[in-house]
């Protein structure tokens, strides 16, 4: 068994910018999940703005095996267009699937269905975890993980079930979320706090539980 962890990766010269990923031997890798053979790849870019964190981009990839190319679902998001002529919805999902009846679509679609950027709201990591637990058979280590995700969903959605796109995640809540997410994985996920960022340490001490 290999101890997996989520790591906050610092960006040289950018004290308030971080990438969150599971890193092993210097390479970003996908988590194995309890109860299934599929894996979950997580990459989230986070910026500290004032007293809260905001998600700058993410890529959550549910995949059937070790290979990147074995992806089944991909949730992706950019806060701003990554280039001026980027023509896709900034929050979208890709499904590695085929149409039941492919011929009509093929007449109009110049690319495979897996290349479609299907619009979504911005998807919190908790909902991805909830989804793989509820529908893919991933086993949480505790029921608390599921109830926590559900409560976050209720807290961040309106009566119609739409995500509150203005919701902001305080630094302490980010840490708490990651800590709670440990329960979904085989082994504890540990957040490596960047030792080079006094600003970040200050925010953790003020806004969230120490790790």
């Amino acid at each position, binding site marked *: *068994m*290999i*101890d*997996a962890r989520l790591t906050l990766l610092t*960006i*040289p*010269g*950018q004290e308030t*910018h971080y*990438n969150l990923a*599971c890193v*092993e*031997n210097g*390479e970003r*890798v*996908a*988590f*194995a999940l309890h109860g299934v053979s599929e*894996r979950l*790849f997580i*990459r989230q*870019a986070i*910026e500290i703005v004032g007293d809260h964190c905001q998600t*700058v*981009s*993410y*890529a959550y*990839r549910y995949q059937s*095996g*070790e*290979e*990147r*190319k074995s*992806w089944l679902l*991909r949730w*992706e998001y*950019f*806060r*701003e*267009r*990554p*280039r001026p*002529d*980027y023509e*896709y919805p900034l929050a979208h999902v*890709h499904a590695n699937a085929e149409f039941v009846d492919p011929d009509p679509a093929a007449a109009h679609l110049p*690319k*495979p269905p*897996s*290349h479609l*950027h299907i619009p979504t709201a911005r998807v919190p990591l908790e909902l991805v975890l909830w989804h793989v637990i509820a529908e893919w058979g991933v086993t949480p280590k505790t029921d608390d993980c599921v109830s926590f995700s559900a409560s976050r969903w209720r807290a961040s959605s309106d009566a119609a079930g739409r995500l509150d796109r203005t919701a902001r995640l305080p630094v302490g809540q980010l840490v708490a979320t990651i800590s709670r997410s440990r329960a979904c*994985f*085989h*082994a504890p996920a540990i957040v490596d706090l960047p030792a080079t960022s006094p600003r970040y340490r200050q925010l953790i001490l003020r806004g969230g539980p120490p790790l």
Partner: protein
Amino acid sequence: MRSSSTRSSAVLAFPVEVFVRRYEAGELDEGDPDVSDLAGLLWLGQNGHRATA
């Protein structure tokens, strides 16, 4: 907990400068999971941030 390495695709073999230039020129396959992942990892277009090696 077991995690696994993943194989590199063609874009992962690019030097950062080449990836950025080709991405911003729209030359890369947006359906390739590595393309959007790397664009996000490098913060391309976010807060005016440009990639650095």
